[in-house]
């Protein structure tokens, strides 16, 4: 099973703003996600969920405000510097190379990130995502569900303290969704902070302890209460 993450980390958004010319994708969003929390982001298309996640992943530079990571190792209480926390990121695009095999892809990203004993880690991951038999096949030949599994494996290579997921359920069948829910449950139990954007309720959204709703770039709802959470999620997926 997944070992406990070494540096649980929280995410802090301070007045994060993103403008594209005259268009505001995000308007002064301030949020605090505690270490180990599992949060669902809901909202219509264009409400800013993807932008928020990509800013958290540091792929997009905010026009204003700041995103930072914070955390402590729990036991000894020392802080890990914010910019050393590297979140895992899963998007709708698989972010792996079609022309390379599953194993080659994972080895590439493992080596780039300085994972120790990369070959063993990759082998273990492939086992965890049930792709060991197809590890030498080119990703080009994979089904959507299999590609998603490679994508998740890539995201959790370094056992990140934070995992960001942008609509990870799209294109998955019920089996795929069940597998993803179980994987994420394992990560959550290991202390990983999860921030994911979803459309509507599912096994995945059931993992969350908090729901945040975005509309036109602003937070309109932020709740952890049970019934209210369903409302937050039900409002999505139009």
């Amino acid at each position: 099973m997944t070992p406990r993450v070494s540096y649980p980390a929280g995410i802090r958004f301070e007045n994060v703003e993103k403008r594209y010319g005259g268009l505001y994708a995000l308007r002064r969003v301030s949020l605090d996600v505690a270490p180990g929390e599992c949060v669902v982001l809901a909202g219509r298309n264009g409400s800013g969920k993807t932008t928020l996640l990509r800013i958290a992943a540091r792929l997009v530079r905010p026009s204003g405000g700041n995103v930072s990571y914070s955390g402590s190792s729990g036991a000894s209480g020392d802080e890990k510097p914010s910019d050393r926390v590297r979140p895992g990121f899963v998007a709708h695009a698989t972010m792996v190379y079609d022309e390379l095999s599953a194993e080659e892809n994972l080895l590439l990203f493992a080596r780039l990130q300085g994972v120790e004993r990369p070959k063993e880690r990759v082998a273990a991951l492939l086992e965890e995502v049930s792709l060991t038999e197809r590890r030498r096949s080119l990703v080009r030949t994979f089904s959507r569900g299999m590609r998603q599994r490679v994508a998740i494996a890539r995201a959790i290579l370094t056992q990140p303290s934070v995992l960001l997921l942008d609509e990870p359920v799209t294109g998955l069948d019920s089996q795929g969704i069940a597998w993803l829910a179980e994987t994420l449950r394992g990560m959550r139990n290991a202390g990983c902070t999860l921030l994911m954007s979803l459309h509507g309720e599912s096994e995945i959204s059931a993992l969350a302890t908090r729901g945040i709703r975005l509309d036109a770039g602003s937070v309109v709802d932020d709740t952890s209460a049970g019934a209210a959470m369903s409302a937050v999620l039900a409002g999505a997926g139009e």
Partner: protein
Amino acid sequence: MWKRAIFAAIVVSLMGAAAYASFFIAPTEATMGTLQRIFYFHAAAAWAGMTAFSVTFVANLLYVWQRKPRWDSLGVSSAEVGLAFITTVLITGPIWAKPAWGIYWTWDARLTSTFVLWLLYICYLLLRTLIEEPDRRALLSALFGIFSFLDVPLVFGAIRWFRTQHPAPVIMGDGNSGLNPTMKATFFFSVLAMHVLMVFLIMERNRLEKMRFEVDVIRHELEVA
């Protein structure tokens, strides 16, 4: 409103004075006669064009560093103005050269690197039309502008050092070679007038760019509401 009108009046006066000086105050040049007077316009425009491109370079650097739309505005304004000046240089050059030297063009270092510079700034403006999102457009064109600016001295150096086996008549001569004091004064006055014109054009173009940006913001606000 008034400030702009006054400035415009100053520009017109200076340009008029410079033209007057070029035609009536500066002495006629010995070998080429009246035709040489185009030099005051041509060379001054060249200097102003180069200054405009330097302004673009600085604006590009400032944009990459600070990401303020005003630097992008300034960059594109001075690039367009610079391009206009350099275009007149490239046109007046051959007009002058044919009667004076019998050929329209020569591939010497200055002319050729001016031409390549002109090409690079056309590409800069063309690139901008091919990127829709304003922040991307600003950043990518600023970066291209920076690379272009660094390239120009290299172009000049390459031609200067490697094409000497194709000697060419130096069309315009050095700005200061063999010019008598009145001519020098006329020349520097022309340069001044051109630079004032350049500043005026850049400011006007910049105003236009800022207005476009504001209209864009308002339009998006309306769409969302």
